[in-house]
Every structure is written in C-alpha cells, then in structure tokens.
C-alpha cells in the first residue's frame, strides 16, 4: 500500500501549504467571503434579472463557480514552484509512487475547493440566499462544483508544468482564469452581452456548471431560455465538460510531468 501512503502524505503536504501560505489561504477563505459580499451588494444593486428573481439567489451559484475557478490558480503556482525547487527530485530519489505527486495535488485541490465553496455558501446563507431544491439536489449542485474544480485543477497542473517559474504560472493563470470566470453567466445574465461575447459565454464550461447548479438549487436561471445547447442541457454539459477536461488534462499533466522530470 505504498502507493496509498505516498498519496496521503503528499495530499497532506499540499494542505499544510495552503494553511501556511497566507495568499493561498486567503484565496479560499477571505476572498470568497469578500467577493460574495461585494458582488451581491454592489452588482446586485444594478442588475435586473430577465424573468425576475433576486440577484442574491441568482449570484451565489455564480460566485461559487467564480471562486473555484480563480482559486484553481494555486495548483499551477504550487506545482511550478515545486518543480523549480529540488523537492521533486527528493521525492524521486525516495522511490515515491510517481503519480502521487500529481494525484496528491489534485486531491488537496478538491478539499480546498470544498472549503472555498463552504465559505461562499455560508456567507450566502447568512445574507439570505436559500437553495429551494431538495437536499439531494442541493448536494448534487455542490458535487457539480467539486467535479468541475477537480477538472480545472488538472488543467492548471498542466499550466504549472509548462511554466518556467511560479510567477509566470501566476500571471498566465490570471490571464486564462479570470476571463473564463467572468465571460460567463456566473455574475450577470448573458442576454445583453454583445453577440460574440454572448456565444462564448453560453458555451463556456463555467456557464454550464453555474446553470446546472442554479437548476439544482432551484435558484433563478435566466439562461434556461437561451437556445445554445449547453444552456438547454446544463447538467449534462457540465458533466461532459468536466469529464472531458479530466480525460484530456490528466494524461497530459502526467506526460508533461514525466518530461519535466526526465533528463
């Protein structure tokens, strides 16, 4: 069971890092609370939802998606700084089960994604957000977010592996993840976006995940009236996107890892 032990040890190592790295810790604790309050009270005062409904109820699913997306950056930064130091070499000379480095990282990411989601959800509940669906459906909504967060962490693992340094991973990550989070239906309805942007937003995996969660939470989901396929079948689209990303990025990450650690 060396494989399992290596996996547990390295997962824990990544969790310890998040606890001790103030920036990463704030990414999954302070930032979710802050974003939730800012968006609900600042944006919420100006956004009128097509078909009615409260912005607060609309926004929490979107904020969950946005926070998970932007905090996925930690994966890229963490892995690339590990690769830049000699710590991976140390693991290699200890005959550590090779996939444990990456899989351990991704497991830690799911746990942090869960923490991040909990902060958003609790903040939401405190300010009056209510999921109206059944308990099972609500849990399913969170499940979708965690699945997507897991998929995203494999994408970010690839980014970490091709980055020359933690700083460059951070800046490239920002350029990819922020538009991914924002050009979506997460924070504003897509109806009034310019046509090109709207098409992108409607096919953005973040939109599918957000819509799926809104459906499961029985929260307002204006995107339901949009004809784009993912908006008509958000749950299926969210699962397909996530599974597809894992299918592409997990093998790619392990290939890149092998390449980075072979000379």
């Amino acid at each position, binding site marked *: 069971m*060396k494989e399992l*032990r*290596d996996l547990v*040890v*390295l997962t824990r*190592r990544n969790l*310890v*890092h998040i606890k*001790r*790295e103030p920036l990463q810790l704030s990414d999954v604790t302070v930032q979710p609370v802050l974003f939730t309050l800012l968006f609900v009270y600042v944006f919420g005062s100006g956004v009128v939802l097509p078909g009615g409904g409260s912005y607060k109820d609309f926004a929490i699913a979107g904020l969950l998606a946005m926070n998970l997306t932007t905090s996925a950056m930690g994966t890229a930064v963490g892995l690339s700084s590990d690769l830049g*130091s*000699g*710590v991976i*070499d*140390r*693991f*290699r*000379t*200890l*005959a*550590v089960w090779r996939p444990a480095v990456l899989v351990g990282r991704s497991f830690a990411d799911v746990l942090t994604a869960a923490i991040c989601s909990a902060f958003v959800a609790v903040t939401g509940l405190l300010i009056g957000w209510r999921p109206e669906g059944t308990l099972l459906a609500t849990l399913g909504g969170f499940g979708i977010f965690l699945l997507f967060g897991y998929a995203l962490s494999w994408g970010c693992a690839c980014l970490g592996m091709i980055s020359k340094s933690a700083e460059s991973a951070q800046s490239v990550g920002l350029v990819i993840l922020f538009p991914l989070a924002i050009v979506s239906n997460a924070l504003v309805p897509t109806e009034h976006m310019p046509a090109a942007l709207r098409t992108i937003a409607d096919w953005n995996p973040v939109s599918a995940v957000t819509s799926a969660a809104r459906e499961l939470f029985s929260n307002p989901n204006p995107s339901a009236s949009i004809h784009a396929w993912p908006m008509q079948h958000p749950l299926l689209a969210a699962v397909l996107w996530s599974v597809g990303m894992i299918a592409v990025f997990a093998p790619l990450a392990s290939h890149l890892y092998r390449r980075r650690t*072979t*000379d």
Partner: protein
Amino acid sequence: MTDLMIEAQGLEKRFGATVALDGIDLEVPAGSILGVLGPNGAGKTTAVRILTTLSLPDAGSARVAGHDVVGEAVEVQRKIGVTAQDATLDELMSGRENLVMIGRLSGLRRTPAAARARELLAQFGLTDAADRLLKTYSGGMRRRLDLAAGLVTRPPVLFLDEPTTGLDPTSRARMWEVIRGLVADGVTLLLTTQYLDEADELADRIVVIDHGRVIAGGTAAELKAQIGGARLEVTLSEPRPDAAAALEEFVAGPVHVSHDGRRLRAPVRSVAGLATTVVRALDGAAITVDDVEVHQPSLDDVFFALTGHPTAPSPDGEETAQAKEVVA
C-alpha cells in the same frame, strides 16, 4: 578485490550542444569516501544525478550497491541517501515535519518515522529548531537538515553534492564533523566539492574532473606527488651570495635566487623538522634569516598543474590551503 559500492564506466551526458560528461569512470569501495573535485560546470552534479537515478546517461553504465542505476532504479533508490545542492526540503514545513514526511515516503510507519526524526534532529543539533518552519532556518541548519533527510532510512550509500558550498566557516567545520561521523559508521560516501581543502580533509580518494572528464585520481598524497614534492623558501635578512651553496645539501634541485638576492627557492624532499635544520645550518654559516617556509603542494597547485586554470576560492577566504611550517 574489495566490494565496490559505486562503480561507473564511461558515463556520457549531453545537454543539447553542451557535453556535461565525456566518459567518466568512478569506483568507490565499500566504506570509503570518494571526493569528486572540480570547478563549477565540471560535470559533478550531472554525475551525481545519474548515479542517484535522477538523470539518464547517454552512454556508459553505472551500478550502485550492486544495482544498475537505469534498469534497477528503484532498488538503487532503496540503498541511497542523497543531499543535493539545491534545497530539496519543504520550506513551509518544520524540520520535524520534513523528516517525518521523508520517513513516511521511505516506507516507515508513523511512529517509527517520528522516532527517527527525533533521533536525527538530536544528532544534528536541531532539536531546538525542530518545530520551526524551514524558511526560518539558517544556511548551515538547512544543510544539516538536508543531510539528515538523506539518512532517514540509514542508507549504506550516500551522495553529498557540494555539502558546504556557501556556508560560513563555522557551519562548514560543523558539517565536516558530521560527515566524518557518518563514515565512522561504515557508510560509503561520494562527495563533490569545489574546495580542495574539503576533499583533502574528508576523502580517502579524490578524482579531479574538468569538462566532464576525470583528469586525475588517487589519494591526496598521490595527487600532490604528481606535481612534485615540497618547496623550500628562505628569506634572508640581507643578500648573501654564499647562501645558495649553504642550502645545497638539503635541496633536491637547483636553488633559485631572486633579483634582490634575499629570497631563495628550491624543491626539497619534505622531512620532519626541515625548516629548523635549515635555519641551524644557515645560522652556522653566519647567515641571518627572516623567514623559512616549507610549502607542501596544495591541491590548488595540483589543479593548476593538471588543468592550467585555478579553482574557485574557498568561502572563508583561505585560497591556499597550504600546510605551512614557519620558523621566525
């Protein structure tokens, strides 16, 4: 023939157009220390990376503790401890957490891993700092912890890549002490260094490498012998034309006299008390001397003689690690 714990034949490694290793042979008998000496970029780290399974050779082969480093990498990994040049521990974890993690990853259960960590922290004088995060450690403490990390599983073969580079003299002396202690336990050790005094101090045998090739090898004494014996230098209070003749019986070659006639140099066979004998002889001839020195050739001299370029200076400013015998 003694058992070889480390043996390499014809190791070659290229990075693009750069030849890092150009056919290196190494042999380290069980229980001995090999010092691999060379300047920056000589190929020391590349050789260590290949021997520790981190890098694959382009040509040649190597066995460590009887296992092939390419075909039986996992078996090799179970037998070795490695202390690399770069920091290979976790900055955001404490010294203790690092050692426990390494123990766990080496296959120890939780309790034995914790016990071993405690033992190593005590052995390396890090007990007080055990629960501080590594990022608060000094350079010397880090190196010691890094070395401790290589010892968690009590491996029979150790690789230390420049264990004292960048350390202050006190930390360096402490590290040497620790390394000597390891060898007393019967560990086989390969140590790379840029510092000749370090190789001289610690190693049983030394190989000198430059541009990816072994250019000389032997004990420190053998290497010194390769560039000739000791050198006598006499400084007179005032020039005396008869001084050279008075030295004849002690020297092993021609006596060279400086322009001002006050300094004389000659190769000698080094014997105990030579400087004193020389002073007495000159005194007997009524020649007064300011200074008499017998220089043992340093490994710097060896390196210069072998490669035509000098090595990097020691960190503590002792560029010449010469054994001096000075008589005022």
